[in-house]
């Protein structure tokens, strides 16, 4: 009982931290890509997974998905749903980087702007995947423990509201 209540007391703070870190990373990563749309498209094309026209749309649009999710996470709006969507996005990122590594491409993931081909031997797939896995853990934590301090939420965290109407 004692450890359980301690967890119950600490979890909202841990969730606040997870929200701020994940949201902050998404917001920064998205903004850096929005600044330079040409680079973002080039980065998507470097994965050689999408036809040109699709790569353009994804290169332009995907950073805004990150910014939208980042803003929602930082504000703490619908944390469980947004965290699940963030987790899904991260799984896609990880799959894309793994596929680039498996196919032997020499590219930068373009996770924080830039991206595109790099000379052979200068890839950093291991670190890129580890970082995304770490962020995925934060997202999964938030799906499990969505209620947190300093959040707009309270609504639709998947729990009954405690506050009186």
């Amino acid at each position: 009982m004692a450890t359980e209540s301690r967890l119950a007391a600490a979890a909202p703070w841990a969730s606040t931290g997870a929200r701020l870190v994940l949201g902050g990373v998404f917001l920064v990563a998205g903004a850096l890509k929005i600044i330079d749309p040409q680079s973002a498209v080039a980065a998507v094309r470097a994965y050689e997974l999408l036809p040109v026209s699709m790569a353009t749309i994804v290169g332009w649009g995907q950073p805004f998905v990150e910014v939208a999710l980042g803003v929602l996470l930082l504000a703490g709006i619908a944390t469980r749903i947004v965290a699940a969507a963030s987790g899904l996005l991260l799984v896609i990122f990880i799959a894309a980087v793994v596929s680039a590594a498996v196919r032997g491409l020499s590219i930068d993931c373009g996770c924080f702007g830039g991206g595109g081909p790099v000379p052979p031997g200068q890839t950093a797939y291991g670190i890129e995947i580890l970082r995304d896995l770490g962020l995925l853990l934060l997202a999964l934590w938030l799906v499990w423990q969505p209620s947190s301090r300093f959040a707009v939420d309270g609504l639709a965290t998947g729990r009954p509201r405690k506050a009186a109407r």
Partner: protein
Amino acid sequence: MSGPKNLNARERARLAADQAAARKRERRILIIMIAAFILIVVGGGIAFQAWRTSRAPSAAPSTSVSVSPVTITNGRPIPLGSAEAPVTITLYEDFHCPHCADFEEEFGPTITQAQQSATARVELYPMAFIDEGSITAANAMACAAEAGFGQAYYLGLFANHTLQWSDPQLIDLAAKVSGSSPSEGFRTCVMRRAHADWVTSMNAAADTNGVDQTPTMLINGKEVDIATLTPESLRTMINDAAQK
């Protein structure tokens, strides 16, 4: 827990079911609202980027490097600057490569200075491997060099590197950097991709010379490590090369 004590079990169960249904409904509405929010942001974002990449180029940085019209020869780079300059700076760049734009922003002024003082001249290999815009820009660069405003055009292409480089944008840029309406010859050169073969030959030349990334810079034929370069160390390198 907090329910009235006089409710029987069935009523409590019904109340709980009602609450569960209400929560589910709330949740569904919330998911729709979140999805709509993301869609609006992304849709707006795509429209914003489409506008940004298709708008007219802004004015290019002015340059006093005078370049006489050059002849475009397959496999040969575009010379920019005084032919008598003691130092040759060879540049392999794609007008749409992100790192090239960063490189130009950081080191462009130093290189332009060396060109202006007739210390160095640039031999430009515009490569085209990122996208369609790389090709159209490289072709237009050759057209501009032929027309005699290559240097200004080169700076203008990098100053506006977020543009997609459609024909009207490339012609507009020529008008902005040359200060007058571009000639019919230039327009035709851009629209007909007059130097398409030359653009291909640039990629081939880079391949032959063992260049596998952009930007790549050589000073008097010696490759420079851009990763550790600062504008100051570049200036020193150019001046040292001029002394020899």
